[in-house]
């Protein structure tokens, strides 16, 4: 059953889930979908039948989310899966990612589009190495909201002391994270439904929101707070028709900030200034853009602008750079080596890049920085220095998730081999100091 949202008022929340194997993550998602009536009879009937065939004791809600044959056979999740449900207040997109060590890359992928992360903990196990890794990754990807879901409370007699001690452990560790996150701990039992959608009757000592109440009300931003206005050009619209003979519109989606008719803008890489004369959509013209929406923008002057260029405002220019440091997560079985050459894809731009050096690698167990490394294997995370063939127009990832992120693409296979988050730019007198202050 699909809940009917009020299309005028409902917002959207994207979140990701992370947990170790057997923390009950798939069960939690199954429970959210089930209790929000987002599961259909035919889906449930199929799951009941599969559970019976496998000899499971309960109806295995995890089977709702494990879609591929190998996963159903092995009872594990091997890739990022996206799930959807809605309440009258919000539409939700879940990036369901597996928690095994070797699937760090999936967690990074799921986290890249998420506004919130749910980190699952088995109440019997408490904070484990995996938990620390998940919190580190949430911070690295700049997810500002974290829900600490202390699950399987039914197996510790719904004991408040267990919950309090796990929260204290986690908070202590979270204080040391370089990127602070807002943490909301919730005790729950996904199997029995305690505090997932409905408040638990067995934990009257807990007065906070249920998971769903929190998800429905938590505030997330969509780039409104940004002072820097960024508009990467995707495509140039030239109708070449009699009706729109001289029309030349720059099609794009606002990455951050806003643009108004009459605003002065600088076009990169040309570096030329012009004025916005029109902001168009199929539904009509606008005076001002909204973050994350798509437009076609016209300028007063005929400047040579094409895909991969960027419109920004003179008062808050981007960093124009060919040398940068970035945190990366390596995705490929083929190792990354110093001097390796890749395509770097940043917003709508693609440039060639060479790895100058590995600044450090992060030991994923201790989260220590390890120096003097020369290669990255699959799922490795760390900081590298890149030299680009032509400049990109960027911001630090810590201030802008869209203009601060990139992927690396293998020149031979064309596969996406790394996710990158820009930490600092290294050329230009005006860049060095300010940029050097960016934390990872």
């Amino acid at each position: 059953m699909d809940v009917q949202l009020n299309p005028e008022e409902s917002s959207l929340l994207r979140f990701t889930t992370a947990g170790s194997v057997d923390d009950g993550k798939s069960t939690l998602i199954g429970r959210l979908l089930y209790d929000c009536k987002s599961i259909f009879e035919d889906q449930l009937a199929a799951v009941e039948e599969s559970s019976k065939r496998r000899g499971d004791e309960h109806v295995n809600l995890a089977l709702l989310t494990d879609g591929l044959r190998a996963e159903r056979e092995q009872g594990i999740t091997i890739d990022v899966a996206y799930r959807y449900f809605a309440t009258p207040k919000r539409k939700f997109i879940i990036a369901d990612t597996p928690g095994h060590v070797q699937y760090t890359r999936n967690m990074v992928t799921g986290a890249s589009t998420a506004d919130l992360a749910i980190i699952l903990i088995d109440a019997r196990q408490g904070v484990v190495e995996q938990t620390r890794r998940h919190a580190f990754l949430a911070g690295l990807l700049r997810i500002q909201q974290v829900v600490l879901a202390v699950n399987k409370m039914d197996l510790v007699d719904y004991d408040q002391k267990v919950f309090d001690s796990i929260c204290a452990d986690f908070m202590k560790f979270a204080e040391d994270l370089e990127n602070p996150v807002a943490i909301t701990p919730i005790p729950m039992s996904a199997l029995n439904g305690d505090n997932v959608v409905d408040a638990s009757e067995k934990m009257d000592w807990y007065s906070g929101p249920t998971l769903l109440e929190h998800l429905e009300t938590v505030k997330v931003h969509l780039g409104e707070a940004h002072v820097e206005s960024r508009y990467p050009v995707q495509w140039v619209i030239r109708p070449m028709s009699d009706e729109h003979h001289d029309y030349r519109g720059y099609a794009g989606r606002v990455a951050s900030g806003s643009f108004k008719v009459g605003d002065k803008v600088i076009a990169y890489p040309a570096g030329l200034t012009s004025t916005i004369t029109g902001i168009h959509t199929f539904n009509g013209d606008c005076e001002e853009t909204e973050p994350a929406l798509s437009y076609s923008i016209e300028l007063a002057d005929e400047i040579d602008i094409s895909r991969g260029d960027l419109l920004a405002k003179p008062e808050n220019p981007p960093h124009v750079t060919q040398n940068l440091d970035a945190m990366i997560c390596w995705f490929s079985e083929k190792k990354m080596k110093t001097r390796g050459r890749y395509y770097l894809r940043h917003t709508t731009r693609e440039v060639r890049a060479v790895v100058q050096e590995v600044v450090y690698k992060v030991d994923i167990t201790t989260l220590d920085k390890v120096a003097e490394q020369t290669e990255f294997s699959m799922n490795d995370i760390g900081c590298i220095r890149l030299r680009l063939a032509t400049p990109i127009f960027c911001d630090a990832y810590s201030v802008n998730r869209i203009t601060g992120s990139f992927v690396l693409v293998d020149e031979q296979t064309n596969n996406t081999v790394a996710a990158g988050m820009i930490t600092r730019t290294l050329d230009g007198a005006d860049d060095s100091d300010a940029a050097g202050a960016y934390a990872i």
Partner: protein
Amino acid sequence: MSLTHLQYLESEAIYVLRETAAQFQKPALLFSGGKDSIVMAWLARKAFYPARIPFPLLHVDTGHNFPEAMTYRDEFVKEIRANLVVGLVQKSIDEGRVVEEKGPNASRNKLQTVTLLDTIEEHQFDACLGGGRRDEEKARAKERFFSHRDEFGQWDPKNQRPELWNIFNGRKHFGEHFRVFPLSNWTEMDVWQYIRQEKIPLPSLYFSHQRKIINRHGQLLDAETGFVNLLEEEKAKIEEMTIRFRTVGDVTCTGAVLSTAATLDDIVAEVAAARQTERGTRADDRRSETAMEDRKKEGYF
């Protein structure tokens, strides 16, 4: 101001459509006359306005169409000033590329894959935009926006490119191609709410009407067009029913639902109360638990 969920989904789809036009030499938009492909074509018109859609619509025609869907197709294509390319399954059969299934459950749905791949090769399309949504089926939940296919058109679920932020990697070798799904993050409800918001015209099949129907193992199949092979004993059991279709595709595998929903408001209310997925009405997905995954690996949409 915060965006409504429909504004977000629309902008995301427009972004993906523009990326497709920019990153590929010769894309095509798979158009079946079903509501998802109609919404996708509508969004393509918005994405490139006031210019025309810079790629053709491609209809893989099984020949087993509802006449209403064909009339609609031709009018809609004219209305949005798009170019239409048609790939005929009948042609694949005539050329001996595929063999028609026999028996009461015979369907050309599976044969479409060959026709699609042949048409892609004939026209050298390097990206096909599809209206597939991740909420439709469990194998689709792991599909990418930019889905890489090898030179045999196959999908390898274990070897997909990771997609991060809003960066889509469409680099490919010669002979390889992509399927692109701009509506990945939409649900059936989102599609209906968007159709209502935008006042998009739809084929009449989606609205309640009287039709001759045969009830086969709980599936309500059309008995009017003659494309569903009826068993002798079924012929006596044809009933006139008040129905509508939740999906519109090949007649032989499109199931109807009993419905009096005559307006978009009625349909939105009906979808909100539905207890079966829309693919639950499709015979092709019921063939096995992993039917969709298996067909996708072979090159199905």
